């Protein structure tokens, strides 16, 4: 008789990805660098549900009864606040990380939707200014391409302290992507790695930040809203300090937030998910009497109108999208599957954006590859997508009986999991239990 064999058993701890990483590290001696955000499963907005109206609440009529979507940013100090038609903005992504035509596509899409785009590390290009009606200018630690003329041309200024993908980390643009133009904008030689500092060169700590923000206001004659962008780590305290330092708007980026290039270990293990970060940020604003006076933009893994509605219901004023906008303009398109295969990956998983060989022509500086993206068509697709997200959020808001997206509130939400309930501070569905709050 044959002896029964146990089946080969794979380890849940040493899963195929971990094993392949050990092999890769052993062979190369270098940590893995990639683009995109955290890929592991994290508590997110899918763990929340809206209750909708019934007998105790009544809904608004779809299509007929108005449900506002606009948002005004920068009402605290700026002489010229920004008025957006939709609370979905385009997050900061640098020229350098992205190709010129990709930036143009983002500008065209945002214009059509009545929202803003944002520059990134490396400065503002004239094309970008030209293609974006409302442009937020990032002020980063590296100060690559930082120019007072551009500061004055911007509609708002975003002081970047951190990003959700890498709170506490700087930037990195590997030599392969440093074209002559990118190098020139950053005052560096062509073809060398460009490390972006993780701390600002001329201020440290919240007291200095206050003076720095005052400087930016003085230089721009107090016209422009000043945002402060932070990676989600200790949102309660970081928001309070940013408000104290004089921010008009806080941008809070969760760990799912995309990056152009960062160490995988950083992306997956530093920072907290957006779901866990919004309530402490809002609480901080409320404790200071500043909720809705200092606006809160949140980002990190926003995909659809339901995510937008949930972020707003938890107290945000607007959201920002990076990865989703890139997908809308053609990133990781299955039509390019043959080419992704050649790069050893597959559509939907391609994230070696730092190598500059993006078949979709988006995360590259290769003149041939970037010809593949038609900014008019791509801009149209982004506009469509932004419009769908806005309409989806309206569908939910009307169902909850709200005449404006900003009237959504935590009371409209329940959680599907204990974790989400604890993080979002809304009750577990079908109960009135919020971990850590009652009984």
């Amino acid at each position: 008789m044959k002896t029964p064999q146990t089946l080969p058993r794979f380890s849940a701890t040493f899963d195929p990805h971990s094993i392949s990483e050990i092999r890769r590290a052993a062979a190369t001696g270098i940590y893995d660098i990639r683009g995109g955000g955290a890929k592991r499963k994290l508590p997110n907005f899918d763990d929340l549900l809206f209750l909708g109206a019934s007998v105790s609440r009544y809904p608004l009529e779809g299509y007929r009864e108005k449900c506002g979507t606009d948002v005004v940013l920068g009402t605290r100090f700026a002489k010229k606040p920004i008025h957006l038609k939709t609370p979905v903005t385009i997050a900061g992504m640098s020229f350098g990380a992205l190709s010129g035509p990709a930036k143009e596509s983002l500008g065209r899409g945002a214009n059509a939707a009545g929202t803003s785009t944002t520059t990134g590390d490396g400065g503002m290009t004239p094309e970008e200014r030209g293609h974006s009606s409302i442009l937020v200018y990032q002020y980063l630690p590296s100060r690559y391409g930082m120019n007072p003329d551009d500061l004055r041309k911007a509609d708002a200024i975003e002081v970047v302290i951190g990003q959700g993908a890498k709170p506490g980390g700087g930037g990195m643009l590997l030599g392969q992507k440093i074209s002559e133009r990118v190098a020139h904008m950053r005052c560096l030689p062509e073809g060398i790695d460009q490390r972006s500092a993780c701390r600002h060169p001329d201020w440290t700590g919240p007291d200095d930040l206050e003076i720095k923000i005052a400087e930016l206001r003085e230089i721009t004659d107090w016209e422009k809203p000043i945002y402060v962008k932070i990676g989600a780590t200790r949102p309660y305290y970081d928001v309070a300090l940013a408000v104290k330092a004089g921010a008009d708007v806080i941008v809070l980026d969760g760990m799912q937030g995309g990056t152009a290039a960062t160490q995988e270990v950083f992306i997956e293990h530093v920072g907290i998910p957006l779901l866990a970060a919004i309530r402490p940020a809002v609480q901080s604003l409320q404790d200071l009497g500043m909720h809705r006076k200092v606006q809160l933009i949140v980002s990190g893994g926003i995909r659809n109108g339901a995510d937008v509605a949930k972020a707003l219901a938890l107290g945000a004023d607007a959201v920002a999208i990076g990865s989703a906008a890139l997908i809308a303009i053609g990133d990781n398109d299955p039509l390019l599957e043959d080419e992704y295969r050649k790069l050893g990956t597959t559509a939907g998983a391609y994230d070696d954006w730092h190598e500059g060989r993006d078949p979709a022509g988006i995360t590259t500086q290769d003149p041939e590859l970037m010809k593949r993206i038609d900014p008019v068509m791509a801009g149209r697709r982004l506009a469509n997508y932004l419009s769908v997200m806005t309409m989806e959020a309206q569908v939910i808001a009307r169902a909850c009986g709200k005449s404006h997206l900003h009237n959504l509130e935590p009371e409209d939400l329940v959680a599907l999991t204990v974790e989400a309930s604890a993080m979002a501070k809304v009750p577990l569905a079908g109960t009135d239990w919020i971990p850590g709050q009652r009984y």
Partner: protein
Amino acid sequence: MESINFDLNSTPLREINQYLHGAPETLKGKSVTIANPNGAHNIAVGLKADLEVTIQGHAGYYAAGMNQLAKVSIEGSAGTGVAENMMSGMVHVKGFASNAAGATAQGGLLVIDGDAGLRCGISLKGADIVIGGSVGSFSAFMAQAGNLVILGDAGEALGDSLYEARIFVRGKVHSLGADCEEKPMQEADRKILVDLLEKSGHADISPDSFKLFGSARTLYNFHVDNAGAY
């Protein structure tokens, strides 16, 4: 020359800066004095006209920040980030300067008669800085382009992770940062040094008394064998 006199004791900073942001054609050639600065922050920031501004005392943070074209003179000492991200023009500090003097400056000339604190010329992007005294540690950290001339001594980790900027030091260097090394002074370097000494009022000092430091360029592209230096 037409002279306009402000007094920070009686005129708010906002009003003075707003005046200094007037049409460059109108401001061109004017001379402006600011009395009683008393360490106020953000004096004369964001100037974009070819005029002269004299700050009659000590300035706080970011004095003459992001300067374009203007000649700003600070008769006392300057706080953190004097002339940060300057694009052109000239800023002259007659006293001492605090940390991050001339940080990320892209053009123009910053002259400091006294000492400068930590991180002088950090991330320098093309401007020239001449320091009559000594500089603190981490000066010229990640400096990309431009020239830093130090008549006195330099603190620890000078020129750490340096890119293409030149550092001329007359005194002692406490230590060099990663990837910064002494270089032979070529004729072209010497010319730059002579010119800067002249422009900063140090024409009497011999360029031969300086050593030149630059980037060894070993960290320009990531290599695993250098991991310890990053």
